[in-house]
């Protein structure tokens, strides 16, 4: 039986019924990792011994009736910016190459409570700064649809691992599209929850007012189940919010009759690949045929989201990454002359080029003389962008959008020109600036056969609506496994 080809919920059912076990599932995942991961490099660290020990215990607890949840025994991969006690957590950086956390991120604790087996840690852009998963100190991730292409980023390892069936599902994090864009490139489903839904405790911070943890899975139902498991109000994250339990049976319903869908006209114009546009419009049409009301509208301010985002994210990053000083943990340079030289050299040698670029930009826009012109201006722009979404959600339940201007680019193509790479984030970053939930679901392929996903954006706390639209669209299609999954 190909256990990793099942969805997480299907696998969970078979484990609970005794048809298979948590140990069998974990063993198959590791066997696939051994077979495929030299090629795709989805993982930075695997913890086979720990995972199998945990799976045995899970099997006992399922048999004793103690664990009854839908994800009990299901093996998952965790993005390597989420701290895991006793398992190395690198954030894709030389800075944290040997860092072993003494505590586990709250979202992962919640998964462990649900009986999920943690297989290991997935590769990513260094400190989640990138759109291709090529800036990892440990080498790039390859797209399981075509090794010549990137998987997207920064949660590229998580999305590629789900696509290549090297895990049942994965956790990613999304600061400017880092779950939604690689999910599109890898042909999987990924959800960025409303800001505050999932505790960020134990997530190595990039842009704290933008970061959110979310699920990557084979389908919408899996994403909903994982979301339900990881959401919690956590006193250890003062920005986490108390939400009533989500009504998932209402959300996972094939029914969009009367649902008001808006497509921003400004998202369909110049810069969008023709094949991607055709996929998005095709998916929109499919939902219309199911009874949704579809309309194009002007969202406005779309092009301003990119400079506003890069100013705010870099500013927050420059502050968050000040903690890496080579004292209590992390990389320390070998040769230095005094304390300040130790700080500077440790940081300069420990961080890669893209991280340094953003720290410098962030330091600059926060410095006296430039703070008002750049940082405050960006925050005011953010307020206007939020207002524009607010107006849109008075008229629409769900906004449909591409997740990226093209399907996955070739390896090495994107890093040449930073601004061009940043422009690729145009459809995803505004969602983070406004704190909104967004999901990407597969909706077709481009002329090269690379997957394309459609992004569905909801108002804050309206995950049920985007899940319902995503679930309904999913029912009109069959899941397409990538070539690597069938190996």
């Amino acid at each position, binding site marked *: 039986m190909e256990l990793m080809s099942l969805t997480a919920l299907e696998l969970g059912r078979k484990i609970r019924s005794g048809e298979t076990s948590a140990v069998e599932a974990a063993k198959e995942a590791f066997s696939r990792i051994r077979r495929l991961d030299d090629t795709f490099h989805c993982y930075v660290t695997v913890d086979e011994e720990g995972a199998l020990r945990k799976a045995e215990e899970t099997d006992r607890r399922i048999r004793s009736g103690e664990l009854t949840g839908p994800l009990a025994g299901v093996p998952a991969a965790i993005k390597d910016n989420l701290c895991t006690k006793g398992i190395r957590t690198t954030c894709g950086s030389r800075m944290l190459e040997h860092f072993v956390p003494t505590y586990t991120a709250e979202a992962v604790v919640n998964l462990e409570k649900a009986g999920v087996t943690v297989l290991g840690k997935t590769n990513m852009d260094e400190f989640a700064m990138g759109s291709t998963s090529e800036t990892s100190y440990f080498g790039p991730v390859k797209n399981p649809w075509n090794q010549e292409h990137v998987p997207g980023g920064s949660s590229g390892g998580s999305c590629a691992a789900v696509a290549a069936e090297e895990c049942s599902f994965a956790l990613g994090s999304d600061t400017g599209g880092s779950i939604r864009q690689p999910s599109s490139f890898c042909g999987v489903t990924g959800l960025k929850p409303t*800001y505050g839904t999932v505790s960020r405790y134990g997530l190595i911070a990039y842009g704290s007012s933008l970061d959110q943890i979310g699920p990557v899975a084979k389908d919408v139902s899996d994403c909903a189940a994982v979301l339900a498991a990881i959401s919690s109000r956590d006193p250890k994250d003062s920005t986490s919010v108390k939400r009533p339990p989500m009504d998932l049976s209402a959300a996972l319903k094939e029914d969009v009759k009367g649902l008001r869908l808006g497509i921003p006209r400004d998202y369909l114009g110049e810069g969008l690949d023709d094949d991607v546009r055709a996929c998005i419009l095709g998916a929109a049409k499919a939902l219309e045929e199911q009874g949704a009301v579809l309309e194009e509208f002007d969202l406005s301010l779309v092009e301003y989201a990119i400079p506003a985002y890069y100013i705010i994210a870099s500013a927050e990053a420059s502050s968050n990454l000040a903690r890496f000083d080579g004292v209590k943990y992390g990389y320390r340079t070998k040769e230095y002359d005094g304390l300040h030289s130790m700080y500077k050299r440790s940081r300069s040698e420990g961080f890669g080029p893209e991280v340094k670029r953003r720290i410098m930009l962030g*330091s600059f826009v926060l410095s006296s003389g430039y703070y008002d012109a750049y940082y405050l201006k960006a925050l005011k*722009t953010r307020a206007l962008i939020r207002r524009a979404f607010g107006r849109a959600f008075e008229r629409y339940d769900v906004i449909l959008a591409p997740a990226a201007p093209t399907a996955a680019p070739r390896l090495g193509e994107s890093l040449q020109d930073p601004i061009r790479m940043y422009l690729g984030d145009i459809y995803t970053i505004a969602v983070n600036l406004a704190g909104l939930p967004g999901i990407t679901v597969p909706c077709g392929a481009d002329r090269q056969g690379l997957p394309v996903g459609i992004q569905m954006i909801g108002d804050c706390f309206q995950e049920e609506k985007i899940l319902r639209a995503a679930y309904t669209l999913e029912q009109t299609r069959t899941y397409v496994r990538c070539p690597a999954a069938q190996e």
Partner: protein
Amino acid sequence: MAHVISDETIEYVGILAKLELSEEEKAQAKKDMGNMLDYMDMLNDLDTEGVEPLFHVYPLSNVFREDVVENGDERDRMLANAPEEKEGAFKVPKTVE
């Protein structure tokens, strides 16, 4: 307006960011930052008169909780992550002359 980033600016940013850049990195940083700022000047086209800056999506003010120790004694495990340690403490270069 095209931004020209001076050597002084790059030095200053290096001090703020606590980074030591090679000559080659400095040249690249000047170019990259100039390009980025040119691009970001687009925001000047936008009228933000009277708009309150949005630092955070929720109107959060200080969130208080009791200061209770919840974690156990992790000293040895934490020190295991330290680049250098001595007698149960983090070892750093001399900080006071």
